[in-house]
């Protein structure tokens, strides 16, 4: 984290982010050639705008997901938070521009409470993040399915402009997303809690022995993750003009955001990774999608390509980082009891 670390360790972090951007560059070059081969220009304003627009929603979710994954947890409730916040905002605004602030604040506030709930369940009740957020997601889904039959509310024109306008080829939504990413980057680099997020994700026990409150960074990460998912929901509401109860789950933002975060070089077990890597991962997805749309690839084949790219890319990262990370391997789960009978039996059986 600072200059005093040993040499090989210092190289790891910029290295992994650099590979992400090298991979992005590779995808862009291949994409440009493919798009060029069907007589279209990859670097046209329209295409760039499409790619950047595609980045913004997933970008918001993935930035929050990065924080949660850095602490060693997961958030599977994001798609439902996205849907819920789009509905809350659209219903509060009711097409009246005077209610914009209220709607945004309500959506963000409810999301923060959901994140707080996630964080407390993970840290205080000791429920694995996977199950905790899966359960909370199901609870929100039950609420959405019960209360809403279809899209509801409406968003005033002024609010729709956020999703529709741009500076040149760069959409405003993407600029906001990158601004949020910068804030989160500064939060991770410059604040105490930011450093604690890395520490807790690296090893809860070492963090605790170093005198940290290990619960606090996890809770903060979950709250921020839900808030950024709510931002994605607000953006979707602004684009659709209404709130929708299925917009989040249709986007598959839970698994896609996790995939984007890991594609960005963040270690799924926590403790290692950067926000800019995640943005790179999101960009790779956006470029892939745009190229496949231009090439008119069958929508089902798109999923096949996505799946293969996720696995292949992560295989490349882990293959590279293998040697340097060796001392950490197997560190996971060292707090579990060692006197497990299974272990003795296995030893005896060999």
């Amino acid at each position: 984290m600072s200059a005093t670390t040993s040499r090989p360790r210092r190289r790891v972090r910029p290295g992994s982010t650099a590979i992400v951007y090298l991979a992005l560059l590779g995808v862009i070059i291949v994409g440009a050639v493919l798009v060029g081969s069907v007589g279209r220009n990859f670097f046209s304003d329209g295409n760039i705008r499409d790619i950047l627009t595609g980045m913004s929603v997933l970008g918001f979710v993935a930035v929050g997901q990065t924080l949660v994954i850095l602490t060693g947890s997961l958030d599977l409730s994001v798609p439902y938070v996205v849907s819920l916040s789009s509905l809350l905002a659209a219903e509060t605004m009711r097409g009246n521009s005077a209610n914009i602030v209220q709607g945004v604040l309500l959506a963000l506030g409810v999301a923060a409470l959901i994140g707080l709930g996630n964080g407390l369940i993970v840290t205080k009740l000791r429920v694995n993040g996977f199950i905790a957020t899966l359960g909370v997601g199901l609870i929100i889904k039950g609420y959405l399915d019960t209360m809403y039959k279809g899209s509801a509310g409406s968003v005033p024109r002024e609010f729709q402009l956020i999703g529709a306008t741009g500076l040149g080829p760069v959409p405003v939504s993407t600029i906001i997303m990158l601004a949020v990413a910068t804030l989160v980057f500064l939060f991770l680099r410059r604040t105490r809690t930011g450093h604690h997020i890395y520490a807790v994700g690296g090893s809860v026990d070492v963090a605790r022995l170093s005198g940290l409150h290990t619960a606090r960074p996890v809770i903060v990460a979950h709250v921020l993750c839900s808030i950024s998912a709510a931002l994605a929901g607000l953006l979707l509401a602004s684009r659709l003009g209404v709130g929708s109860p299925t917009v989040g789950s249709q986007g598959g933002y839970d698994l896609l955001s996790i995939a984007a975060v890991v594609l960005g070089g963040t270690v799924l077990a926590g403790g290692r990774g950067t926000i800019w890597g995640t943005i790179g991962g999101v960009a790779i997805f956006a470029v892939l999608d745009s190229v496949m749309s231009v090439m008119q690839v069958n929508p089902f084949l798109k999923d096949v390509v996505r799946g293969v790219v996720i696995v292949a890319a992560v295989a490349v990262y882990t293959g590279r980082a293998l040697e340097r990370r060796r001392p950490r391997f197997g560190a996971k789960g060292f707090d579990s009891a060692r006197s497990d009978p299974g272990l003795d039996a296995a030893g005896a059986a060999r």
Partner: protein
Amino acid sequence: MSTPAATRQTSRLASATLTLLSPRGAVFLLLAILLVAVTLLNPNFAEPGQFIRFVQRVAPVAIVATGQYFVIVCGEFDLSMGSLITAQVVIAGNLIGQDESRSVPVLVFMVVFGAVVGLVNGLITTMLRVPSFIVTLGMMLALLGGVLFWTGGAATGNPADGFRQIGRGGIRDVPVVDIIPWSVIVLAAVLAVAIWFSRRPFGRTLVAVGDNVTTARFAGARVWWVKTAAFLISSLSATVAGVLLVGYAGVHPSVGRGYEFIAITAVVLGGVVLGGGRGWVVSAVAGAFALETLFTLLNVAGVPSTLRDAVQGAIIILAVAYSATAFRSRRRVRTAHASPTEEKVPAGDTSGGAPAIDS
């Protein structure tokens, strides 16, 4: 002679009570409570004929949970199970069609296909060191996309009736229960094999690997093979569930959707710890039954189907919170006894990682 026997019996009773309250046993208590609740609301449910139908309906979920147990207990995830079920269902529908003579070759093909999927999952996880969450997520996308691409997104007809009998038929004219469905027999066989596996050195090694990879490797376990075998088992169990579901539910691209999460939920309800190293396969199957009984209960109680998800979410959080806190208090007692060695091992383990955090 009688006194020691009596004390043994009391201590056995006490330990049985303890087991019932412990996370691995709590699921049976939960299951019993749910079954009683369903029976109270709908007395027909307890009739043998009705009950065996219920078991038949749960069989695919329970089989998938069995497979997922092996993967989870060695510290991995298998998110590709649901997609694999869909793939197998569609394969059966498309390749068998109305030609009953193709049943056996296609069945063999499905088993081989399942094995290949499991092998790929396992080898990429162990050889290329990609987290299994990502590997099986990629496999999930690729399988579902591939199958839908192959069929053009639309489901094609059901396979021949003879093949569907595996999932919907059974031994008829049995006294008491009227019919013993084949799927119940398959479930019993799968469970028996699973128990046998987990008692053999393989099963013990699997748990050891899930508890601590490094220690298991030092103890001489072939970690890559054990984990790959776990993925093989889970893919094959998804294949079996697919065969049953073709008969029971027919061919549709949505058959199998969400099964991976249901299976993980069931396994975790059974007190199996995510991250590996702890759990019992019978509890995992009981978890599947508890989950399905819960759905039945909500159905019988007239809870709107839209609220079912919410109740399911709340229950799994509570169940896992219970087992997590129970395990924690237990571990504390243990740690107090073993504290000298306990302190030493993590310190040696993390010598490489610790400086990075301090600085």
